[in-house]
């Protein structure tokens, strides 16, 4: 079988586009690629600066592929991927990996499930055995499933129930989306975590874990040839099957502002505002990235300047948009200062968005945003872990990692007018959802008990 291999240099492209961006020695990053017969794509970035490897596998499955009743299943499944297969039984995946100097983690989003291994190069062969075992022969032990259910309910408690930002964020998305699966949380509703069955897990495995539904990214002290040889030995024999069914549901256009309020015990309120915006691979990607930078990045950003520094209405403000396959939210999250009415903060936020829509951005701001994005790019390239992450992320969301190589040129093309037009198009009253957390004293009943 003929393999596809490509070698591209980041350095040349980045330097051409950014003029004096760096020295000749600055950046010499090559991505080499290969596709297995079963369809799994492999991207390799050889970096011999430390004797370690960052091994990431991106599966194109997340909470958007779920249905009501089994929300959170992708995330739960991610946990089960560490709980034993055929060759390496319960607990062995982690035990063997750590005993050989490796560590691992994983995350699930609305769009993806990503597995990450970090290890000394001496463990390379072993890692392939571990990864192959679990995607070929994962086991489903009822006792293990019950124990892991407890772990995941605990994770939900710590990240949502006992985190006011988590609670409000969940409400924001549940209100902004009425049709599309982005309406439910990645961790799932608690009642669904309690209720899903073994067969739900097995179906999920069959749906999402075809090798052809994955991109493997390996950065570090390796050579493409050895990665390909190991992948051919351990991964290629695993048969491929259909990818997950297409997510056909589209969120209907929002036709008026939506509001949701959470009242609970808290020291301070929270305000969140979300606007529907397109998915990552949209032509508006770069203007939206620039908007995010100008609004939120650094103490010179518009919202820090106005809300935190000048008017002193907020303790902090953060936001932006998540990378996604389907249209998502551009959100604003603000912690009002003690004694400040969240409604006042909300009004000032709208004043700032209004100013952006009417007056646009300055040349200085546009250039600043481009400089910040370049510096961020270098920071991501500092570590083998950062490299695996950014190469894989570009590859899955744009369908091709080359988009990363062209990022500098694409940013250079963004105009002030385009940024202003995008702000005008999306930051409208009809398109927004507003979520507010209002502090409440503990219920008298609870106090009596004490």
């Amino acid at each position, binding site marked *: 079988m003929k393999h596809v291999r490509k070698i591209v240099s980041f350095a040349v492209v980045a330097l051409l586009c950014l003029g004096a961006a760096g020295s000749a020695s600055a950046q010499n990053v090559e991505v080499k690629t290969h596709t297995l017969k079963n369809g799994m794509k492999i991207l390799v970035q050889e970096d011999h600066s430390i004797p370690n490897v960052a091994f990431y596998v991106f599966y194109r499955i997340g909470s958007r592929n779920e249905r009501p009743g089994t929300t959170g299943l992708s995330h739960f499944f991610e946990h089960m991927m560490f709980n034993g297969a055929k060759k390496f039984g319960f607990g062995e995946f982690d035990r063997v990996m750590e005993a050989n100097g490796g560590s691992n983690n994983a995350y699930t989003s609305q769009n993806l499930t990503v597995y990450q291994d970090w290890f000394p190069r001496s463990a390379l062969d072993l890692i392939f055995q571990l990864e192959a075992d679990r995607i070929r022969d994962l086991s489903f032990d009822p006792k293990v499933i019950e124990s892991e259910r407890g772990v995941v309910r*605990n994770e939900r408690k710590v990240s949502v129930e006992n985190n006011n930002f988590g609670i409000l964020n969940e409400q924001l998305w549940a209100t902004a989306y009425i049709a599309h699966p982005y309406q439910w949380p990645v961790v799932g509703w608690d009642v669904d975590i309690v209720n899903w069955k073994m067969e739900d897990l097995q179906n999920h495995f069959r749906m999402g874990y075809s090798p052809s539904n994955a991109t493997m990214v390996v950065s570090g002290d390796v050579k493409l040839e050895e990665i390909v040889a190991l992948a051919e030995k351990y991964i290629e024999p695993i048969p491929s099957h259909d990818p997950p069914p297409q997510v056909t549901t589209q969120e209907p256009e929002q036709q008026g502002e939506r509001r949701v309020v959470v009242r609970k015990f808290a020291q301070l309120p929270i305000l969140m505002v979300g606007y529907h915006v397109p998915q990552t691979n949209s032509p508006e990607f770069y203007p939206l990235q620039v908007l995010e930078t100008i609004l939120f990045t650094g103490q010179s950003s518009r919202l820090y300047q106005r809300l935190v*520094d000048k008017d002193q209405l907020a303790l902090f403000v953060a936001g932006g948009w998540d990378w996604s396959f389907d249209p998502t939210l551009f959100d604003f999250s603000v912690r009002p200062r003690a004694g400040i009415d969240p409604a006042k903060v909300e009004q000032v936020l709208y004043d700032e968005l209004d100013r952006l829509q009417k007056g646009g951005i300055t040349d200085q701001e546009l250039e600043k945003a481009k400089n910040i994005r370049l510096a961020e790019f270098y920071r991501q390239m500092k570590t083998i872990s950062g490299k695996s992450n950014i190469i894989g992320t570009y590859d899955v969301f744009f369908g091709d990692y080359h988009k990363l190589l062209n990022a500098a040129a694409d940013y250079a093309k963004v105009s002030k007018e385009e940024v202003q037009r995008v702000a005008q198009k999306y930051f409208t009253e009809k398109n927004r959802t507003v979520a507010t957390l209002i502090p409440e004293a503990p219920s008298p009943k609870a106090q009596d008990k004490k």
Partner: protein
Amino acid sequence: MKRMGKVFLLMFMLAGLVLPAAAQGGGELKLPPYKKVKLQNGMTLLLMEQHEVPLVSFSAAIRAGAVSDPAGKEGIASMTSGLLRKGTKSRTADQLSAELDFIGGQLGAGAGTDSSNVSAEFVKKDLAKGLDLFADVMLSPIFPQDEVTKLLKQRLDGIKSAKDQAQGVIGQYYNSYLFGKHPYARPAGGDEGSLAAISRDDIVKFYESNYVPGNTILAVVGDFQTADMEKILTDKFSAWPAKAVTPLRVGDAPAAQGKRLLLVDKPDATQTFFRIGNVGIARTSPDRVGIEVVNTLFGGRFTSWLSTELRIKNGLTYGASSFFDERVGRGPFAISSFTPNATTERCIDLALEVLKRLHEQGISEAELKSAKAYIKGQFPPTIETSDQLAREIAELEFYGLDEREVNTFSAKIEAMTLADTKRIIQQYFPLDNLVFVLIGKASEIEPVAKKYAPKMDAKSISQPGF
């Protein structure tokens, strides 16, 4: 997520919570060479070239942290560092932020218990500008009154904000309760009472007496030529007038005797967050390496005994761990986890059982081998980047250590025997003398909490202080 990110204190603390460790398996991993320069005014410069990425990282350590705050005015060191970029002799706060952000630079400062730290990173092509900004905030801050007032108010609200999440404040409650009257009990960021007592004069005085060349180590790592960088830094910092300083020496806190417990009521909590432990070790402890090996097995990694029992086997929590926070003096040691209100008792009982088993059963030859491989395998990525290296060499210098600390680590790890681990368990993993701090819903967990210690103290999360 499979598990939460480790608690990295990054630029805000020099004390190493996450223990850096060893060298790689086969060949030795050595710290890249760097040059140490002592300026005439007493300032120490450390310079290391790293040409992989066109960035330059700065890490400055000043020998004065929260322990130098006068009692009752906790938070001065932290306020001082926070105000460095809020106005200098030649730039307003807005100008500093605008110039910094325009070049995509990063510049932050903070105070830990023993030191204050200023970190920065710039793209190579903007190094001249970046250096100018860095030197400006280090040498010429003016602490404008309006910025002082603004930041004090923000910090006060910041404490309220932090108290909305038990996870974010349990460390401070634990340290305060564990260390009692010792300065390590003090909240580095201050509390509701102490912040109200701080004036601009306190901050100016703190800066003038502590931010002096003889107290300052500056590590610079990145894409530059050492000779050029040495000249530039010498030019920038030689004019900083020398001043005599007597760094504060804080004695070690005595270990807690017996058992005591603090219950912090958070009426909306559906989980109990807890820490259990005692006074641990200093950064320069001769047993540091051995402790890291034992702690890796006890609570320092995913398959550790604590994580295996509390999470993997019993599903009682999403995370269980133990750590030694190393400082100039002996810092805290703690077991840390969280669990639903209803399983509080089972989870804490199990954590204590695991601790008991560590003493009774000890660790096996196979486990010792596994821990050694793990520590060595995980070490290289901790000194991979220019900012990590800058922090590392500044920290070594701060503690009076040098590159041998890194270059001999592998050998020290390898030399560990089972007999060593037995002694270390006896000496550093207390069994009978334990301090407990729980944050949770008191109306549901108080009866459980009471059983762990003859003395139970109680607080409400809404009460000022920690």
